[in-house]
């Protein structure tokens, strides 16, 4: 296997891995190499293919093409269990253990030491304690897993995986909900695993952490491998450039000179001062005028969606105040937000957006109907009118308005949710990743719609990972990093370079 005699056999080697889902190519001919004792970080934005790669390696999905070699031998994992038997363990962010069992039992579930046919609970506890102690974690293993922090739970999951003689350990976003101290604790465990020669694949969105722990980085974008680097040789700005797929240019693009003043005279629709929620987002100010588009940029996990949820009343702020049209408001639920003329197209269409079994028509009229009340029912004729009007206006590709919305493609589902809000005629639209996971044609159409809505005088807050898009339509851009607002750009300052720099640097 060794093409380069100086190099040892890689622990895990992936070649030309490809996976196609019905509508999209999730992974296309990706190569990936993991050496023993390496911490190899996978980075990329949503839809880059990180999770697909992991799922192919761990047997959740089956590959379409390519090879996976473990210690030079080809493997074909059929299921997570099979992968684990081969020596590949995975720890997910949402810890896949049993919260209602003790720590010790979680480590030994299904392979408890027996004595005379019965579980030797004392041995289970003793051995579990010892395993954890090896990583300098000294806790009461008889307590329920759920009584410990997520960090400890993740360490327990790691210990279980490693004690099943894992050679490869995959950590899928383990740090997303950990505080600084917990991250340190987790990292010390990772370092001692490294010292034992275990190969670690880490997925994380936090660039500081990448630089703190990684030895090697692979960047994925749109299902393709963009680059592989030793972390010591990769400057931060270059990393972000690769992730977002934009080249840094010397000169910033010329912007419309009038951009700044365009909305200076229009009235402020929404103003929030010092909005914050503990553990979710640090205090931020934001002001949006009618007809203005404010872009919200930042990496995944930077607090983008949380800002939208806080404003829309899905979650409550514990600090700060909000004003709509200059009057103070206290929004406690989406329903109240809607009363003030707000609308939110959520990031997770399937869970928070569409009502899958209901028809396109019913999905489109839903918000308006909820606003009008139970007994003020839109006549069927009116419903058809609204639905057909919207299907036409947004070019929703559906044979008719009665098709269940779950049978439409992602882009068309997005349009249906947009349509739902448009007929409710809001003053202020929050769009969370409106163009994600949809094809190029629909993408351009949605951008057109966004611009049209702004021209009609609607205030808009748009979250997007696509910087080109943000630059194209935003009048102002608010930039988040690590759950903090770090900058606000306006007018000529809005270009991909400045945004990327703001995301990357402290």
């Amino acid at each position, binding site marked *: 296997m060794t093409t380069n005699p100086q190099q040892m056999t890689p622990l895990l080697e992936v070649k030309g891995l490809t996976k196609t889902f019905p509508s999209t190519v999730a992974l296309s001919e990706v190569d990936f190499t993991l050496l023993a004792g390496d911490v190899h970080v996978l980075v990329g934005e949503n839809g880059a293919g990180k999770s697909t790669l992991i799922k192919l390696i761990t047997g959740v999905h089956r590959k379409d093409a390519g090879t996976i070699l473990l210690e030079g031998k080809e493997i074909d994992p059929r299921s997570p269990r099979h992968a684990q038997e081969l020596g590949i363990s995975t720890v997910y962010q949402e810890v896949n253990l049993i919260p209602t069992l003790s720590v010790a039992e979680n480590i030994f579930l299904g392979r408890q030491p027996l004595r005379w046919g019965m579980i030797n609970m004392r041995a289970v506890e003793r051995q579990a304690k010892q395993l954890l102690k090896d990583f300098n974690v000294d806790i009461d293993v008889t307590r329920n897993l759920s009584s410990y922090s997520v960090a400890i739970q993740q360490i327990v999951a790691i210990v279980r995986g490693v004690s099943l003689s894992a050679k490869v350990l995959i950590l899928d976003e383990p740090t997303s909900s950990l505080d600084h101290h917990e991250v340190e604790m987790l990292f010390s465990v990772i370092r001692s695993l490294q010292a034992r020669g275990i190969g670690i694949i880490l997925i994380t969105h936090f660039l500081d952490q990448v630089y703190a722990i990684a030895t090697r980085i692979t960047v994925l974008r749109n299902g393709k491998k963009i680059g592989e680097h030793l972390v010591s040789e990769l400057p931060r700005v270059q990393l972000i450039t690769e992730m977002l797929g934009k080249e840094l240019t010397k000169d910033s693009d010329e912007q419309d000179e009038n951009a700044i003043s365009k909305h200076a005279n229009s009235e402020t629709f929404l103003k929030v001062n010092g909005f914050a929620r503990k553990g979710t987002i640090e205090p931020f100010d934001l002001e949006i005028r009618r007809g203005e588009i404010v872009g919200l940029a930042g990496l995944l996990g930077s607090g983008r969606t949380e800002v939208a949820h806080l404003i829309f009343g899905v979650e409550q702020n514990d600090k700060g105040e909000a004003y709509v049209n200059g009057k103070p408001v206290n929004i406690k639920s989406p329903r109240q937000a809607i009363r003030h003329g707000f609308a939110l197209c*959520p990031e997770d269409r399937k869970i*928070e957006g569409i009502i899958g079994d209901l028809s396109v028509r019913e999905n489109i009229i839903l918000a308006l109907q909820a606003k009008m009340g139970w007994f003020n029912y839109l006549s069927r004729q009116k419903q058809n009118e609204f639905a057909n009007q919207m299907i036409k206006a947004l070019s929703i590709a559906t044979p008719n308005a009665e098709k269940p919305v779950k049978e439409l493609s992602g882009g068309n589902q997005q349009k249906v949710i947009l349509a739902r809000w448009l007929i409710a005629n809001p003053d202020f639209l929050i769009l969370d990743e409106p163009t994600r996971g949809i094809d190029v044609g629909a993408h351009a159409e949605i951008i057109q719609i966004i611009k049209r809505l702004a021209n009609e005088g609607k205030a808009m807050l748009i979250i997007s990972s696509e910087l080109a898009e943000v630059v194209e339509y935003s009048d102002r851009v608010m930039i988040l990093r690590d759950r903090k607002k770090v900058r606000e750009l306006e007018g000529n300052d809005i270009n991909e370079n400045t945004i990327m720099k703001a995301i990357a640097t402290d």
Partner: protein
Amino acid sequence: MNVEGQQANPAKSGLEGIKTLAISVSSSRLFWTGLALFIILLVDLMISPNFFEIRLVNDRLVGSIVNILDNSAPYALLAIGMTLVIATKGIDLSVGAVMAICAAVAVTLIKQYEAGATEFYYQPGFVILITIGVGAICGLWNGILIAFLNLQPIIATLILMVAGRGVAQLITNGQSPTFTNDTLAFIGRGVVWGVPFPIYIAFVVLIFVTLLVRRTALGLLIESVGVNDRASYYAGIQANAIKVFVYVLSGVCAAIAGMIVAGEVKSADPHKAGLFSELDAILAVVIGGTSLLGGRFYLFLSVMGVLIIQSMLAGLYVSTLHPTTNLVVKAVVVLAVLLLQSPEFRRFISQPFGKLSRRRR
């Protein structure tokens, strides 16, 4: 099946054609439920040739069909309420107990009236209203536990299911009081134009509730909450109010069913009134095609589910089979319906067929 296969074997292509037709028709729920009812009635007819015979005796229509409709009435009421509850991804186990409570309330009050009490709330008309109110309060209790305390529907309604019969016994002081008042009795055994009164009640409630949910936004909102309550919340729907509403409606339906049962026998039996009826109601809803996972609901088909169960029982009644086989036949039919609705089972069944056809080729 590919095109070549069809050319090679015309007989099979005919089979395929039937299959395709069957698949397209099978998408119609009404067809399948109707077919099930039709087959059961046909079997009934084979068992007893004069099954469909209806005679007029003392100004009252008499015959198996009339009996089926009459017996179906209280279950149809429960099934109507239950359909909406299940559409919101809930379940109401308490309807049988609520029937017992309401029957006890109505009979206890009417006995005061018979004993000469003159207060207005002992008047039969008010007694009926009060009883319906009690049913609504029971539903309100369930709804509050589920919507605001966030209890699982199965647990929340289990509480009233267990305690409800005790409450009913408390009201009747452990007795099964009887009454003679004609107004209350009329609800259960009255006859209008030859047709038993409960049939009218069930029909009117069915039409009323159908109009209530289909001519207002309620039906849409109920389905929306049942399919995806999180997305519904984001769209500004008051999911909690919807949930309370469906449980209250279910309680009201149970109250009317309780009065029908009490009127039928001119008595309220806190032990037996509505016993197991929640299970029959849930069953009828499931047979009617409303999924226990919530979402789309079919009021007419739920009532048809009740008719299927009652026609089956009527057939057993006229057959030479011993009446004790009722429950066994019911269990078998339930299992058959449930298995046919289970995608896993259909896959399991189609696998051997697949192998068979390959071997034939």
